């Protein structure tokens, strides 16, 4: 008899705690690009959480970073409040959103350069867009095509669902298809480490990864990745559904990301602030 009472009390207490938990914290669901979701958004989220905690408001974040395509898709089917994307939504996706009654809006939060990296033993010191296209489209398969060195090129790319994959195709390869000799790696990290180990390797990574030991960044058309004229830069977006009002908290979060404090974090994780 006694155990039963204790059990009942415990259950009630647990249920109460659960309810209290639910009413006190609000969750912001963010899904999409792993370029944004790897470091930048989680860090902004932490800072935002800390700021809110001071005001006595508990905020929880659910951040899933699986690729820009998922960001667009989750805004379309409403599973995320904010989507993250490292590329413009495709015409197909906008039309699909429209078909579902969703007016997709993009908010630029930062800019990202795609850096071209080669092994540090590579004598090459600069590269042109034209040469990048030659290499990644598979037209040139040997280093001798662009330099006075030999060795078959190992070109490492992101995998097909990555936003960087599509953006690089547009910015660096005049929208041509990747050559069939390119190798599709799981992420920035893997590209950087393969290039660091392979003297004939070349790949592209986000700016956060250029300090990997053993790799060397090549200026493109004479411009370094952090200069204004760098041809391989792209905006990073939040995606929201314009047709439905955001929760006040999500709205505040977006404003926070664009504020001076948010942009400071953007700089810290090696992206370019928008202002």
């Amino acid at each position, binding site marked *: 008899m006694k155990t039963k009472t204790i059990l009942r009390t415990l259950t009630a207490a647990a249920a109460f705690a659960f309810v209290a938990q639910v009413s006190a914290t609000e969750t912001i669901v963010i899904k999409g690009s792993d370029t944004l979701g790897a470091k930048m958004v989680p860090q902004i989220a932490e800072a935002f959480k800390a700021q809110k905690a001071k005001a006595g408001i508990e905020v929880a974040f659910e951040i899933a970073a*699986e*690729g820009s*395509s*998922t960001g667009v*898709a989750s805004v379309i089917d409403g599973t995320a409040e904010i989507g993250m994307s490292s590329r413009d939504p495709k*015409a*197909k996706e906008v*039309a*699909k959103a*429209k*078909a579902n*009654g969703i007016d997709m809006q993009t908010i630029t939060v930062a800019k990202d350069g795609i850096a071209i990296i080669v092994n540090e033993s590579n*004598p090459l010191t600069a590269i042109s867009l034209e040469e990048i296209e030659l290499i990644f489209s598979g*037209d*040139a*398969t*040997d*280093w*001798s*095509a662009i330099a*006075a*060195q*030999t*060795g*078959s090129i*190992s070109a490492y790319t992101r*995998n*097909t*669902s990555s936003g960087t*994959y*599509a953006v690089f*195709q547009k910015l660096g390869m*005049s*929208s041509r*298809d*990747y050559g*069939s*000799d*390119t*190798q*599709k*790696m*799981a992420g920035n990290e893997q590209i950087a480490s*393969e290039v660091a*180990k*392979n003297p*004939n390797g070349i790949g592209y990574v986000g700016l956060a990864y250029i300090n990997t030991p053993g790799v060397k960044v090549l200026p493109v058309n004479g411009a370094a990745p952090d200069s204004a004229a760098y041809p391989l830069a792209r905006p990073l977006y939040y995606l929201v559904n314009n*047709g*439905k*009002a955001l929760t006040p908290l999500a709205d505040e979060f977006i404003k926070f990301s664009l504020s001076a404090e948010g942009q400071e974090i953007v700089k810290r994780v090696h992206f370019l602030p928008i202002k």
Partner: protein
Amino acid sequence: MAAKPKTDHNKPAFSKRRALFLGQDSDSIIKAFFGSNAMVAIVILALITIFLFKEGAGFAGLYHKSLEEYRLSGLEYVDVLKEKREGYTELTRYLNDVKSDWINELKDSGASQAEINKAVFSPESKALFFGYMRAGSDLKKFVKTKMDVAIEIRDQHTTNENLRETIANYTKRIAQIQSDRYEFSPEDRAKYILLLRDNPDARTGAEITDETVLDQKDREQFAALLQAESEQTEGTIQPVDFYTAIEDVTSEQARYAEILNELEAKLTTVVASADAINFNSADIDGRITTFKKLNASYFAGIEKHKAKLADWDQKASVTLFQSLGAFLTGKDWITASDQQDWYGLLPLLTGSLLISGIALIFAIPFGVGAAIYVNQIAGHAERNFIKPYVEFISAIPSVVIGFFGVVVFGEAIRLLSQLEFLQWVPFFPVQERLNAFTAGCLLALMAIPTIFTLAEDAINNIPRHFKEASLAMGATPLQTTMRVIVPTALSGIISAIMLGFGRVIGETMVVLLCAGNRIKIPDFTEGVGVFVEPVHTMTGIIAQEMGEVVQGSLHYRALFMVGIVLFFVSLLINFSAQWIVKRYSKLGD
């Protein structure tokens, strides 16, 4: 002496008394429990199979539609145009290869980097190598323009289809609103408020809040506003007529012919300039001669190419069967392309088979050998050590093995391959640490326990009298093992190998991490070198791309089709393993 414990000899070992529950005794309840467990397993398996086929079923239709659009929009025509460009690129590559040979020979002859630069960047050699590369820019530009036109036609068509779907959704929604039983849902209310914000004159009266009661008039108003929006959307459709639009793609034939003529003239002069360079090597001179011949045959092919362009028929129909064939025999797997997505199985299938083949080359001798040793030759203590040890390997999670492959094994192979005294090995030095060989070796590790355990069981199942009879005839223990035991157990051993093969081909994590993920049919002309090429696999592609595709899209269905193929491969392997045991088992003869 202590008294004997009292034993009741009349009491049976098993009690016959049974408790009843809901009119059933415990025996039938236990039977029903086990029966239902088996049933659930079967039902779940059936559901998985049905799901797999259901998701894959739409593929043929969608791919058919995509291929039809590919033909109608003229993208196929552009691909024919591209053939000549590809041929030119191929020649450029050949020339580069010659250049790289030349640089290597200069290096071997002891020239310094400055001297090499001087030779390679001399005006004559620039005229040849860079001149050749530049000569094709007009051709490239022409093909690119045509491609953009064709892509635009196709994209406009896709946009129109989406818009039509939108309008159909509007119509459905309006019909719902106009029916009498309709009540405003929260989404509709939000939409209505949004529409009113854009059309402030539409509703007179107070602001709508979440509590406002919406009446019949609001419903009519809402329907009218939606209708207006739908009509506006309809206005944005720009119809595409494939048969007239194609003219923008196929026009300018004369200009194209001219470009090809110019290219021929330019290339001829550029190639002739090769004679001005002194390569100092009979080898390279020979390659230049071959290059000239290749150019000649490239030029000779121009007429045939033009004929092919003229023969291209936009109206030729694509059958469902052809689209399935394009999947099963397709050599390209290109997704997220601006031009055309291709879903061809061959690069993935050959990749999977190559890796499995490598794995089996290692796993069969080790697995079967260990089984024979443990069962026939090893002593008791040895057996008690080896058997659990080998079987323990299968307890290592595959992701751990994969990680080990990336960080340790792949790198070790690469470093080893660069050692000077090992250069006689055909495919050394290895440039990629992630390749079919790395993945195959690790998979062999995972197949060994399967093959070992099952083969050992098969040998163990040989009746004792086979061995005794053989020994009695005067055969040595080794003769008995090799001539009697192993041949008798052969069907079981082969079946063990088949199941090991099934284990390997279905493995995902290791191949995803270690195979290098290059979607291209391995180049088998390389001989043994094919082992160290990076490949992609059927399991790997599903794991890599499934998480991120839009549900129900062509890409999604294509991945399920790969899953179905994998399913049939596994089914076939398991089926033949059982068949071999039944058909060739020598026991009981």
